[in-house]
């Protein structure tokens, strides 16, 4: 602890992870991000107006079922949304003081790799099968750090060693199909580290791996974060992994963030019925002998702007107003760290008051979007 240092705001250990309060701008700030996909039949609001921040050196988890918009969020930040997908006007992604949504293709290309890296879901397919692992790592070194020849090779060996691949010098000249699944994911991580990013998006990096390898990869990411001061967005549907790695968590459902909280608080005191459902579905948390609880039904496809709570049809505590009013984020604990978008909050108000609160907030939000031209 920094208790010996002069008493300034930074020294307060309780403010750990709350640098924004000290006036420091978060490294990544996403606000009102709307990514839609136009199909012949309908428009899918895959990401529908989400806001979250990632501070320097922090790991932010995004959790939700398949189809809740997690990967589209990652792709939006990376600038990899292509037709028929589109980020709507009024979406804002601020990274290191720059507005990424206004970037040209060339500017985005420059920020990818050296600014923001991405490790994606499927290590089997994220490496090009026809080039050696070394070739692909050295390519990242060449493009992002201008290294080539023997120094690049040495650096690539160091990187493979850093991600705990044994016999790195020999492995460098092998092809991806000669690597095991866990080793391939390490190689992808090494390749992204070769770009020397400040920010890493991990899109379900451990989903395709077995549990022991998963634990090793999480351990590795934590070490690398400590070493390089990386900020990480960690996307997963696995609550156990989130508990393991994240500092703060965003729970996504059908394109919206339904609850945001620091990780301990989320697990200790989940507020949104969806989060509660997710936590109850983890084996071992319920009483022994009791049947494991699940959330009935599937994630709906968000094919219209929200006019109601999208979770209402599956929600055990839904009431009439849930069908009419789109819930807005409400602070549910002291401080502004923990919010939930649910008509059950703010606590202590009557049902009518709560409904009115959300209706007003939704109206304000809609006006804000209309001004920036976000509503199609």
């Amino acid at each position, binding site marked *: 602890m920094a208790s010996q240092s002069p008493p300034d705001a930074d020294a307060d250990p309780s403010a750990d992870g709350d640098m924004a309060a000290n006036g420091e701008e978060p490294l990544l700030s996403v606000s009102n991000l709307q990514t839609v996909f136009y199909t012949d039949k309908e428009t899918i609001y895959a990401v529908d107006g989400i806001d979250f921040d990632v501070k320097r050196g922090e790991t932010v988890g995004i959790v939700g079922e398949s189809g809740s918009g997690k990967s589209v969020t990652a792709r939006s930040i*990376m600038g*990899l949304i292509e037709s028929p997908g589109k980020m709507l006007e009024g979406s804002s992604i601020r990274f290191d003081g720059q507005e990424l949504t206004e970037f040209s293709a060339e500017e985005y*290309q420059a920020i990818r*790799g050296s600014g923001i890296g*991405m490790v994606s879901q499927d290590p089997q*397919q994220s490496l090009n099968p026809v080039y050696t692992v070394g070739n692909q790592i050295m390519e990242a070194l060449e493009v*992002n750090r201008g290294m080539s020849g023997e120094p690049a090779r040495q650096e690539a060996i160091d990187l493979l060693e850093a991600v705990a691949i044994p016999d790195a010098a020999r492995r460098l000249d092998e092809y991806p199909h000669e690597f095991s699944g866990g080793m391939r994911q390490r190689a*992808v991580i090494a390749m992204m580290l070769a770009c020397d990013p400040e920010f890493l998006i991990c899109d379900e990096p451990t989903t395709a791996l077995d549990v022991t390898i998963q634990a090793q990869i999480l351990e590795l990411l934590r070490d690398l974060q400590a070493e390089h001061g990386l900020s990480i967005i960690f996307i997963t549907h696995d609550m156990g992994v989130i508990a393991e790695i994240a500092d703060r968590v965003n729970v996504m459902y059908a394109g919206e963030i339904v609850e945001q909280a620091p990780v301990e608080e989320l697990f200790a005191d989940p507020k949104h019925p969806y989060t509660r459902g997710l936590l109850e579905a983890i084996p071992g948390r319920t009483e022994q002998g009791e049947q494991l609880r699940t959330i009935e039904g599937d994630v709906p496809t968000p094919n219209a702007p929200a006019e109601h709570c999208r979770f209402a049809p599956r929600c055990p505590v839904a009431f009439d107003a849930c069908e009419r009013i789109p819930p807005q984020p409400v602070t549910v604990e002291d401080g502004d760290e923990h919010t939930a978008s649910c008509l059950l909050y703010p606590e202590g108000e009557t049902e009518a008051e709560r409904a009115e609160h959300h209706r007003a907030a939704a109206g304000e939000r809609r006006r804000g979007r209309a001004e920036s031209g976000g509503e199609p």
Partner: protein
Amino acid sequence: MNRSIYLLKRIALALPVILFGLTVTFLILYRGPLDPANAILGQDAAPSDVRRLRVALGYINPDGSPVPLWQQYYGVMSDLLLFDFGNSWAVQRNVSVASIIVSRMPATLWLGFWSVMVALVVGIPTGFFAGLRANSLSDYVASGGGIVWRAMPNFWLAVILAGSLTAGGLMSWYRHFPCGPNENPCAWRTDVVTTPSEVSNLFSTIDLFTGVPVLEMLFIPVPNGFNLLIAFKWILPAALVLGSASMGNEIRIGRTAVLESINSKYVETAKAKGLSPRRIIVKHVGRNAAIPLLPVIMGEFYLLIGGSVLVEKVFSINGLGNLFFRAIIVPDIPVVMALVFIFVLINVFVNITQDLLYTVIDPRVTLEDTG
């Protein structure tokens, strides 16, 4: 298993294929309903002449007893396998088959070269173009064109082109231009019975050892600007017809291959590394897209063998295809056997090359004996 052992093994395995192909051809020619002696001499030939010719061709012994089939088979096969093709019976009597083939080869090579070039130079870039702009108007035009080129039968396209490009066809209005004294140079000639001198002049047989024509089979093209142009113009319609189906195939397969590669995870990863679109397409998409294209490209070589018979006939090109056709009709058995032998050899060679090329462009394919 290393590459050279693999190669030796493949060559050893190719021998039965070559023998089988030649044996089947032999049986068809020698046990089929062909009567070379009568065909050569005509219906009114004297029986004694026919008899003498049969003896000369090796069908019967001088005493009139038939030569046993196995003996004929042994004679034909041992000569062929020693590359002794003998003399022609009918196409050009008593001229060595090797020299006939050598004299016809330039036209076929020239045709084959350009039909492969048309397919490669037009087909693959068009396919890549379409794949990179999938579902745009230009993609629809390009891949629609691919279907049309693929679907048009060679014989139909050949006749249509020959009809419209010659002096009597669509090009006839050109005659109003003072192009030349006798001939309309804008139109294509199709009455070429022998290879035009411009084309034969393109190739000259180089004697590597002074004065000794050791390497008759080795052609080294010696281009001469104007002749090259004339020869190019002369071959273009035929090459387009012969290459059209492969061109269509390459457009279709190229488009699919690019599309599949560009939507893959490794391309997304490459983008996440901050690579330029150009580098991604050239390095990461290009090589992966080449894998499914390889058999299509290699398949063109078969097409040159089978397809050139028809195209050479329609365009009256005096190449190997035309020779093959005439030799079968006459029939001139030594010429047919020699050509089948050469075609089988090309086939086997192309197959082995294709397998070796696979290991070069796709490291997942190895020559290792894993089974």
